[in-house]
């Protein structure tokens, strides 16, 4: 679990979902306007970590895209026990 429930942040929990694919549960104060965009960001980061089966529980308080991306990368690193590849970001 990463992030907080502060305004402009997102709290994300990631748990295994063996053989169940990606199950993304999103609560968001901006769901009507940005729900699809948030799910797309979450999916993209999961894919970049090669995660194919996982349950994501995200409670969004209006976070900007970079924050969602950073929180997702952090939770994926925790879950997979990997270090974040900072160099990758600079390319």
């Amino acid at each position, binding site marked *: 679990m990463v992030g907080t429930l502060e*305004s*402009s942040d997102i709290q994300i929990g990631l748990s295994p979902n063996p053989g169940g694919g990606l199950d993304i549960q999103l609560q968001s*104060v901006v*769901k*009507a*306007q*940005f729900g*699809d965009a948030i799910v797309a960001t979450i999916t993209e980061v999961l894919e970049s970590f090669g995660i194919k089966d996982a349950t994501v529980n995200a409670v969004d308080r209006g976070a*900007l895209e970079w924050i969602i991306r950073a929180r997702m990368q952090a939770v994926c690193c925790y879950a997979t026990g990997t270090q974040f590849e900072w160099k990758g970001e600079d390319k």
Partner: protein
Amino acid sequence: MINAVGRELPEKIGSYVVKPYAGPSQKIEAEQTVCSRRKPSKRAVAETKLMPDLKAAIQACGLRDGMTISFHHSFREGDHIVGQVLSTIKELGIRGLRFAPSAVVNIKNPSIVDFVKDGTIDRIQASGIRGELGDAVVEGLELAEPVILRPHGARPHAIETGELSIDVAFIGASAADDFGNCTGQVGPNACGSLGYSFIDATCAEKVVVITDNLVPYPCVPISISQMYVDYVVKVDQIGDSAKIGAGAARRTKNPRDLLIAQRAADVMAASRLFKDGYSFQTGAGAISIACTDFLAEHTEKAGIQASYALGGMTANIVEMHKKGLVRTLLCSQSFDAVAARAIVDSPNIIEIDNSMYANMFNKSCALDKLNFGVLGALEIDVDFNINILTGSNGEMMSGIGGGPDVADGADISIVTLPIVRGRIPSVVNKVFTCCTPGSSVAVVVTEAGIALNPKHKSYEMLKEDLQKAGIKTVSIEDLLETAYSLTGVPKPIETTDKITCIVEYRDGTVIDVIRQIKRD
């Protein structure tokens, strides 16, 4: 049909005939005499106006099914009058009323929604229906007619044309005598100016004054005169004083809001209209309050004095007055306890009728002389149209207030807002609900830049003045691009065809409608 701000409107909405907004408003000489339901009547001297309770007063007024009742919203969220009156009406089994307060604030206990659901109320007209009621309305709450939302200046006009004809006006007062002379300026639950109620007092058929502070005759000061009052009722509590008017609002510490406030004040100070005798209205939002302080600094530094401040008063405008930075305060509303009690202390702080403040169909109104008007907004679009009603999920965030009146009346109208709120862009391609036409907006001030409206009457003058002062500007399109680069482009809010609210402009035309929000 399409109105002058590009909004699609039906010709008729139920029995409501739509007059589409047709562009900057023209003064019209009306054929018609002002409508008032007030009747000349002689009462027996021995007869008392003082009723034992609300029930007796409502019965004495002859309130029946389908009639129109009105209230003021000067007690804000501390109001206990609306709840007590509606509960009593419900007990009496009177139904199908048209509820026409100056505004509905977010009163939760009892809930106005419940009075709609149980049939006590079936129509609503106000300047705003913020909170639970508004959210229920845009979600499709069943009413006999769509809600009519009007800016402050349009309500007195609608009453005087007879469009909004009031059977019984209930006027809450923090002090009243047994003949109905009353005021909001003194007493334990003082709310300050009763500006919204003057029109109700003079035009309703029956007027009931409700107070928790019955004073010996005559009540001083007299805001509303006994001439207009039929009955007086003393109740235990007219409101919760902590919620009616908290003390002076502390100045925001949010650096973004302070920056916007500072820039808005800088724009005013750079204008050639900023000279001895200038006039302003700033308002009560966090940015507005900070802006007043910055304006005070500029005024002091320039060694000048403003002639008047207008509209809703705050403690820091009263402070400006005490320092001699503004000569006169014309209060149609008092936003905090300091402003509420200041009126009795100074002969130059005066209570004014809301119609004198903003009604364009008067022989003149105080806005006609206003130099600077500072406005808040939820959204502004590339045409400078303002949305002050609906939030990013279509929910009802606020009331129209006097914004459309101020924008139109002021020489220079300044919209202050942050470019994004969370992930919600405030500068957008097209506002969801248009309340104020862009043609009346001179300049928008954000933390990401200041944009002038090239189509505004003051554009050339303001452009020259800002250049001279070295204040840089950007285009509204630049602001839009910055906002969307931070948030992404929002998906439009989906609606059904059902019209839940009609949004009128200050001239009584329809500027927009709010359709029912589609929820999954």
